[in-house]
């Protein structure tokens, strides 16, 4: 986590959603992800693009303040700005579920969530599930049931699975399959994932 692109909340005098002046904005916007930086450079409307938004968001229990280009997704903010690379980018189009996180306790896709909309909200990522060294029951169950092969979809699967149990949508194999259908696994670990969710559910209750 680099400190230069993140304003520590305790030291920040910024008010919420402050639209910063251009001097500050340029300094802070420099480390944006490549795609966005290119888009900015190639555009004639650089002035408009330089506008940034200050976001105060609680991530895994810690209040963070990030100053972002309003085009940046929560997914890129977590990975590129906050160093939380556990959340994966699969399709970046809302079609695979690899980027699933919880916002205010609900599972959502971080690739279709603009970071600018998460001001004053609470985000939980895969890094925030374990209690110190004690894994969350769902993490433990995925390991015990071999609910993964390459592991690329796994953090999204686990974040979704935790929410599915909390939503009370894991009463049968079919209900689990239907409510987990937004998480695609290229390695096709689906049967083991269903077993893991059934195991974890017993411990979570």
């Amino acid at each position, binding site marked *: 986590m680099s400190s230069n692109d993140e304003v520590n909340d305790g030291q920040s005098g910024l008010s919420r*959603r402050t639209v910063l002046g251009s001097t500050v904005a340029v300094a802070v916007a420099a480390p944006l992800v490549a*795609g*966005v930086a290119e*888009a*900015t450079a190639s*555009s004639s*409307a*650089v002035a*408009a*693009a330089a*506008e940034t*938004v200050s976001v105060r968001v609680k991530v895994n229990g810690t209040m963070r303040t990030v100053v972002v280009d*309003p*085009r940046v*997704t929560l997914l890129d903010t977590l990975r590129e700005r906050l160093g939380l690379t556990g959340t994966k980018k699969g399709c*970046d*189009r*809302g079609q695979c*579920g690899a980027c*699933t996180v919880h916002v205010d306790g*609900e*599972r*959502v*896709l971080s690739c*279709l*969530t*603009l970071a*600018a*909309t998460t*001001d004053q909200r609470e985000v939980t990522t895969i890094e925030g599930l374990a209690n110190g060294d004690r894994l969350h029951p769902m993490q433990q169950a995925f390991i015990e049931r071999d609910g993964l092969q390459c592991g690329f979809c796994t953090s999204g699967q686990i974040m*979704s699975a935790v*929410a*599915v149990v909390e*939503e009370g*949508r894991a009463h049968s194999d079919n209900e689990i*399959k*239907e*409510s*987990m*259908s*937004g*998480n695609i696994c290229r390695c096709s670990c689906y049967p083991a994932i269903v077993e893991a969710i059934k195991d974890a559910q017993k411990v979570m209750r």
Partner: protein
Amino acid sequence: MHPYTFSQPRSVRDALSTAGPGAAFLAGGTTLVDLMKLDVMTPGHVLDINRLPLRGIRRDRDGLHIGALDRMSDVAAHRTVRESYPVISQALELSASGQLRNMASIGGNLLQRTRCGYFRDVTTPCNKRTPGSGCSALNGVNRNHAILGTSDACIATHPSDLAVALVALSTEVHLASTQGVRTVLLDRFYEVPGNTPHLENVLRPGELITGITVPHLPWAAKSLYLKIRDRQSYEFALSSAAVALEMSGRTIKQARVAVGGMGTKPWRLTNVEKALAGRRAGEAAFEAAVENAADGARTRALNGFKPALLRRTLVRALTALTTESR
């Protein structure tokens, strides 16, 4: 992604005064953010409307009221919706995924854009995206495309499941702009492409959907949404049917019928509704009633199976609704 400025208005009045040509409202973002990444939508200003007081599901004498910002998952799970309008709840439950339903709003759902692959690919001609550029689907990959309400300018299918259920129930949409408020029947809200496929509805630039009202219809408690698709879940409809029946014993008194996956807009089938009235429920009767359901259909090279699929989807939906134990 094209650059844009961003604001988060707190009142409808503030939102409307900033809205207009070149600006886009952001609700769940599951259509808008996706299409902005693809450069299909390029607003210069994005208005996050999630702080506006446009939420709340309630029922009164007029019917069921739902706010534009209520989420698909909340509406699907709402007790009144499940019990009194199961077709709405089912259409939502069969849409997208759990994550997307938590994000997506009712207003945004009604305004989602077509999934036509050419519309989403800025390197190909598409009249809907770039008026006058041509339609790549006419002689392209058109298996999923519409057979009803098409034109030589565009054959894109309307993708919303919810809208099919709502059109069957004669739902009204409430709109607000700096000019004032108005209410439009959802069926009339949507427009067929004609020569202007980029104009999909009667919404004016800067106009906001504030909510919808589903009219009071006691017999909608007997209703159902059937969705046929290429995989069992997390896929758009190849064909779908929303049906509601008022029964007197085994005899149908009245029916409401609309189909999805077939039209350039959610397609109400009043001819089938009339043909069903007075019939005794049964597969042969249903087959007779849906005989002309696909009248006026125009098929293309790869979607010639759709008229038959439409009729079979209807028969299956009607059969399921009249044989389930109630």
